[in-house]
């Protein structure tokens, strides 16, 4: 009798202590079809090995569980699951002891939650509904995703602030729901008097997700590096570092170009690396590929010239300098070292030069930053390829060979390092291999940039190459290609190619295919000197600019417009949902499920 009382007391105590079954965590949320979802549970009564643990229902269907422990269960989202919100219900299955006890009477044995399942491919026009009347050329897009909370994202493009002229009021796109909806927040420093907004701009969150860093060329041609800790705040990003247009020491104007920001938190402080091209307006600039960097979370900045070879009579490198940071603190940077100048068949400028990668093995925090990777000539910087021919548009009406479609030739370049292995990196650049092409090449190194593969992929007449690598090694490669359709009309196709085996096999998704001849170009660049992609959880997430005609045929995997549009008549509509609006160039967000290796 006494034993029975003890047992009952124990069971009541267990019931009281254990409380109700609850779901503590669902990861990832949102989830992907045919991908693992892990559910953390607590207060499952299972003190004895005979206890059966929990049952999990996904939309009322009992799921096979793996793992299946008393605090963590997992399942795979079934094939054919419709994108949208789904129910997850966890039930503490009654074991023998519970059946015999009072536990069943005293505690809730179920808990449930909602899990959003994303479609495999999502494309969203980022112009918000309130700007349905907008007709600007919103080119050169960029995106940054908060690693700790991937629902927080910012985007950018040459989207003017409708309030202009105003100061420190350039706009950034903000999403707090993983890219499903976007609004514009006028908090970017610089602008907008001469121009309705800042010029080149890129952004990066640190890896802890607490700070967003931005690099912009403002309307005074100064390079501004700025930071915010709250992307939804109405407070203008604080200026960390300003490189003015006129240099009092050099007594020369300095043209900073294409600040490309990457940031990563290592040992409690943020390393910020901004690739940029530093040009003297008067005289020979010589070696211009530069990384403006901070290893103390932006308290101090220094500039490091990363070109160690002669630039000859050209006196400069190409505009694009692209840093990439490994999770272990390895920092790479890629650039195109120009060596001599020539002329193409139609009179366009052609620069002969090298594709170069530099590396620093310790955050570039030492005395000789970016000198850990030597070339065969003994100089810092490995030449991935030499003697390439790079066309470059002078951006004037009289430039004879000025455009690929309506786009200018810039200096297309992208670099990505494997987050799980900093020895593995991919590079993509564009050059001319024949007489009038613009060909993107993709290559790989598996030994920290010492040796490089031959071309893994070549794409003719393409721009805006952008690379990203998942933790599982899957590579995502975005580009936009000028292609003729069946009628011979040119179209800009926006592709995302994925591979798990260095492009031996690949999955190629066309996110958009739009007319290349409309709308008419207002300024250069038409679509952008760059676009961007990042690996985020199960997804490749990115942004590109394109013709915004609301035509389902232009978006093979579907599209969602925030702005008002009638897909039947293929017309954009103003906020009154009646007045037609002219087509223009808009930024498009995309999210594509990463391949499993």
């Amino acid at each position, binding site marked *: 009798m006494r034993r029975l009382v003890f047992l009952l007391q124990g069971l009541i105590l267990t019931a009281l202590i254990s409380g109700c079954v609850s779901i503590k965590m669902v990861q990832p949320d949102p989830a992907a079809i045919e991908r693992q979802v892990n559910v953390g549970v607590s207060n499952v009564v299972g003190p004895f090995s005979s206890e059966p643990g929990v049952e999990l229902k996904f939309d009322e269907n009992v799921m096979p569980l793996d793992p299946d422990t008393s605090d963590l269960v997992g399942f795979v989202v079934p094939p054919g699951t419709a994108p949208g919100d789904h129910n997850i219900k966890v039930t503490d299955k009654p074991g023998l002891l519970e059946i015999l006890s009072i536990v069943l009477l005293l505690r809730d044995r179920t808990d449930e939650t909602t899990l959003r399942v994303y479609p495999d491919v999502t494309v969203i026009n980022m112009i*918000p509904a309130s700007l349905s009347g907008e007709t600007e050329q919103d080119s050169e897009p960029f995106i940054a995703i908060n690693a700790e909370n991937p629902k927080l994202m910012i985007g950018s493009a040459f989207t003017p602030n*409708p309030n202009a002229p105003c100061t420190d009021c350039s706009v950034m796109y903000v999403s707090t729901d993983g890219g499903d909806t976007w609004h514009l927040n006028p908090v970017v420093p610089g602008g907008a008097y001469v121009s309705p907004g800042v010029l080149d701009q890129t952004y990066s969150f640190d890896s802890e997700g607490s700070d967003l860093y931005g690099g912009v*060329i403002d309307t005074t041609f100064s390079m501004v590096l700025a930071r915010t800790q709250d992307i939804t705040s109405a407070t203008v990003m604080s200026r960390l570092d300003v490189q003015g247009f006129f240099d009092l020491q050099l007594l020369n104007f300095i043209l900073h170009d294409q600040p490309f920001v990457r940031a990563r938190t290592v040992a409690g402080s943020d390393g910020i690396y901004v690739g940029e091209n530093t040009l003297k307006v008067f005289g020979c600039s010589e070696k211009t590929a530069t990384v403006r960097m901070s290893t103390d979370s932006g308290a101090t900045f220094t500039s490091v010239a990363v070109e160690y070879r002669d630039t000859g009579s050209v006196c400069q490198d190409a505009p694009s300098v692209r840093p990439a940071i490994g999770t272990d603190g390895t920092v790479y940077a890629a650039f195109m070292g120009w060596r001599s100048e020539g002329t193409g068949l139609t009179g366009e*400028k052609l620069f002969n030069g090298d594709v170069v990668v530099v590396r620093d093995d310790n955050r570039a925090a030492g005395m000789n930053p970016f000198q850990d990777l030597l070339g065969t000539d003994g100089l810092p910087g490995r030449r991935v390829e030499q003697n390439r021919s790079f066309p470059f548009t002078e*951006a004037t009406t009289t430039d004879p060979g000025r455009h690929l479609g309506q786009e200018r030739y810039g200096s297309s370049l992208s670099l990505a390092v494997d987050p799980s292995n900093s020895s593995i990196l991919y590079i993509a650049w564009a050059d001319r291999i024949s007489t009038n092409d613009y060909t993107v090449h993709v290559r790989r190194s598996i030994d920290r940039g010492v040796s490089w593969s031959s071309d893994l992929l070549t794409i003719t007449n393409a721009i805006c190459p952008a690379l990203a690598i998942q933790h599982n090694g899957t590579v995502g490669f975005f580009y936009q290609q000028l292609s003729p359709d069946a009628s011979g009309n040119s179209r800009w196709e926006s592709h995302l190619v994925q591979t798990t085996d260095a492009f031996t096999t690949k999955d190629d998704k066309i996110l958009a295919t739009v007319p290349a001849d409309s709308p008419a170009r207002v300024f250069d660049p038409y679509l952008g000197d760059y676009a961007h992609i990042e690996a985020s959880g199960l997804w490749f997430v990115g942004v590109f600019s394109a013709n915004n005609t609301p035509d389902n045929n232009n978006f093979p995997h579907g599209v969602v417009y925030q702005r008002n549009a009638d897909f039947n008549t293929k017309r954009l509509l103003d906020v009154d949902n009646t007045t037609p609006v002219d087509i223009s160039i808009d930024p498009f967000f995309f999210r594509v499920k990463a391949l499993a290796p």
Partner: protein
Amino acid sequence: MMVIFQNETAKLIRRLALICFLGNLLLLQPNIATAEDSINELVQRSRFIFTGTVVELRAVTVPSITVSDNTIVVRIDELIYHKKPFANYGGKKITVLVNDSNLLRAADQAVFFTNVAIMGESVAVRAVGYKKIGQGETAPRKQIAAALQTMEDRALVERIAGAEFVVLGKVSSIGVAAETLQTHPISEHYPHWREAIVEVEATLKGDSSRTRIVVRFPGSEDVAFRSIPKFKVGQQGIWILRRDIRPGVPRAILEGKETDAYMAQDIQDFQARSRLEKIRQLIKQ
């Protein structure tokens, strides 16, 4: 006479003291006190002006904004001043961010002087100030229109005041500036300077002996120069010109002689010929 003067002076001092006192009181008031501000000042600080009816206090139309005492929802009755994307906002409900909504009630009508703050599913605007419209009153449209005209004129007057030349003329030729022919950086943002020779038909301001002026402008079609006037041969109009004083830049060559070059860098620095009388009036100001 002296007594009268002293009395008048004393009156003036008392008035000034009263004005200062009231001014201080206004300064102590929250932003809503801008209802007392002059329409000119409100217009000067606003890019989005409309008459609207308060639909709801402590409410928002933009989900990303937290509801507070400072958020109200207003239906736009009539747009008075706006930028292009907002042309069809009549009848729309939007969020207005005010410093203090205590003086407003639902169904109140007011003129709102605002700037667009957030553009999402709906728009949120930040109020510089507002002026309530009482029963039987109408919005002070004439005053606002006059203030807008004053604002526009003032900006142009400032451009004219800082200009060395204001000329009516016609572009006879365009060439590449010497600095662009020299070694220059290869960049998307390099201006690719051009020089337009403007045949002067009339000098509205400046040395009237000039019959030709060299006007430098960016030939680049880059985004950096999208708002800067560019010229072509045969183009006629009014140029508001400042001298190119950039250090180290070669002077222009005109008829074989070195001469100063001038620039029209602001979107207002080139005006249509039809604005001639207006520009003459502003120059007199």
